[in-house]
């Protein structure tokens, strides 16, 4: 565990051990439900979640990166910890996800400022250590930039779908990627969210505490807003259409193309027997081998692993992507034609 100072707990409350923090400050959860002064903090915690649910970042009482008033620090940390308690009591996963993401973006701002302030001599500053300890990214300062080993960079950048994060669009030098403080922090945003999310998910759910009911009920109502319904057109995406055309013409579809087609159709609910005849025209068609391979992909033979349809990114690398405007920035062919209502 990282040793944290006052300001740091306020900036990165998720790094603190919640139960221990309350104990150290001499509080129990029950007190928050009954003490009128403390009850205010439950409302603050509710607000913190509501702001996150709206996709905004909670505005804290920190001024210039410092805790403004003596009393502000506990309020900062308590509202975070109580928000987690409320979320656990409500059991609403959509809200937990949104909250984690918003909190990650809030922390991101502080991380970025802290990084930009680091001078060469103080490499061991908290921001650098947080990034290394939590996300295994070795950051070093080089002039105005931060350098990160290419392999560390890739582990995180692959979670982005924007092309600017592809390695080809980065400054690569001596086995490192050069990033600005903003980009460095942005690189771990998703993992920061995942980290906070997993901390919340793994936290024990307390039994209902008197005085918490109202806020919890409001959260359940709030989460209903985020239910979505999807409809699909049922049309195949251009990559699948292309693969079908190739096979129809009796031309050779590479192994990777066959893999994509089969896993796509299996995911759409077609059976091995329905899919197998599609490969009949292939120049090297062999009924026995085709069935064996399809069963393998479906998970009905071999290790039992069900293979999933490759992502658009992977298909692009394999020259199997024939995206049209209808693809609408989907990241997997299976999402084609799905519309949220």
């Amino acid at each position, binding site marked *: 565990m990282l040793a944290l100072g006052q300001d740091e707990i306020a900036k990165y409350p998720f790094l603190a051990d919640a139960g221990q923090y309350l104990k150290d400050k001499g509080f129990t959860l029950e007190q928050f439900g009954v003490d009128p002064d403390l009850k205010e903090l439950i409302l603050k915690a509710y607000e913190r979640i509501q702001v996150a649910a709206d996709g905004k970042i909670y505005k804290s009482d920190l001024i210039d990166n410092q805790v403004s008033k003596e009393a502000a620090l506990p309020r900062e940390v308590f509202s975070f910890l109580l928000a987690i308690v409320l979320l656990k009591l409500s059991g609403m996963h959509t809200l937990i996800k949104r909250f984690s993401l918003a909190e990650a973006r809030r922390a991101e701002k502080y991380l970025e400022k802290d990084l930009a302030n680091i001078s060469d001599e103080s490499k061991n500053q908290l921001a650098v250590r947080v990034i290394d300890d939590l996300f295994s990214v070795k950051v070093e300062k080089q002039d105005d930039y931060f350098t990160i080993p290419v392999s560390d960079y890739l582990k995180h950048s692959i979670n982005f779908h924007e092309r600017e994060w592809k390695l080809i669009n980065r400054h690569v*030098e001596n*086995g490192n990627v050069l990033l600005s403080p903003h980009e460095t922090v942005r690189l771990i945003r998703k993992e920061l969210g995942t980290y906070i999310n997993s901390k919340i998910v793994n936290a024990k759910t307390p039994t209902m505490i008197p005085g918490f009911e109202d806020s919890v009920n409001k959260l359940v109502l709030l989460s209903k807003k985020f239910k979505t319904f999807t409809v699909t057109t049922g049309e195949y995406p251009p990559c699948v259409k292309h693969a079908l055309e190739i096979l129809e013409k009796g031309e050779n579809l590479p192994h990777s193309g066959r893999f994509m087609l089969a896993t796509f159709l299996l995911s759409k609910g077609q059976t091995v027997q329905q899919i197998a005849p599609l490969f009949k025209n292939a120049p090297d068609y062999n009924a026995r081998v085709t069935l064996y391979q399809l069963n393998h992909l479906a998970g009905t033979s071999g290790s039992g692993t069900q293979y999933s349809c490759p992502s658009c*990114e992977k298909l692009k690398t394999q020259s199997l992507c024939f995206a049209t405007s209808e693809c609408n920035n989907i990241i997997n062919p299976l999402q084609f034609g799905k519309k949220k209502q």
Partner: protein
Amino acid sequence: MNENNLKFLEESFKKYYFEHSELILVPERSSEREFGFQKFNSGMTRHISIKDDKELHLLCMQNTPSDVYCSNAYYTFPNLPMNEKDWKEADLIFDIDAKDLNLSCRENHTISICNDCNEISKNHVKCLKCNSIKLEKKSLPCKNCINSSKIEVTKLSEILINDFKINKENIHVYFSGNEGFHVYVYNSQFQQIGSRERSDLVDYIMFNGAIPETFGMKKFKPNRSSFPDFGKSGWQERFSKQIFGSKSKRSKIISELLANGYSSFQKTLDDLSNSIGVKIDPNVTMDIHRIFRMPGSINSKSGLTKIFCKDLSKFDPYNDASYIADDSVEVIANCPMEFKLKNKKFGPYTNEKITIPRFAAVYMICKKLATLA
């Protein structure tokens, strides 16, 4: 392939494995790797664990495999089924194959064999005898194919060394035994990255997915000073060399680029992938569970050995990778083009009975262009 031909190949390969055991060595940390082999006309046997050279030689002698493979990955339990192996890491591998280079010479030395009637022709659309479209293509790579593949290997090595700071000693180049080269990278920072990470690394090496902003072009108010210049590193430098040519032409060409606009610049970048991008097979590098042809083993597509290239520039596969014996054999050959092996010219043959050295017979039978008489 008929029984006699199979027997002949088996016997020739066995002799090679018996006489050239010095070439068939297990790679480092062999007990952590998965091995596999194929026998003629039969499926793959894999998930085998082999601890040393002796065990490997025994496998080759007992099974007379057509092909032998070994994983680039390291596992805790290499002989268990895939999802129980416990993957640890994998060497970075690259496959450069002449057939992927879109070379104009290919047409001159690619032959189609009809899967339905076995007719051999140079027509690549359909069989001229029975109109079937099920054609199997065989190529006898020429000097140009090999040299072009070498150029790709050199381009790849330069990126590995300059951009990724990989030690030259950790890059090993092998002739694949057929139409290209396999490049292995050991002990790099990339040992532990997964398939998706390797896929983006592939795009970097192939120059795929570049956006105009990376090379200084903006959609709105583009600025002359943001374009790449000489003396930089990585793709900025290679871009400058390719697009500007020389320092003196830079300014003029930037003006042209600006005049042509954003989407034209994107097109320029897409085209660059064909010229300065390295043509590797993305699927091979992305696959972290693959078993890959073993160095020192014979490639049954050609009868040539997959072999380490000490000096790539001087390497001649038709001299340096042919290890089959040279006793005389009688075959009926139907090979519409000439080829050279061990400094001897052979062909073209049109359905004729000939007596040739065993190495040439094995080469043609592997390519399905001859049968034992």
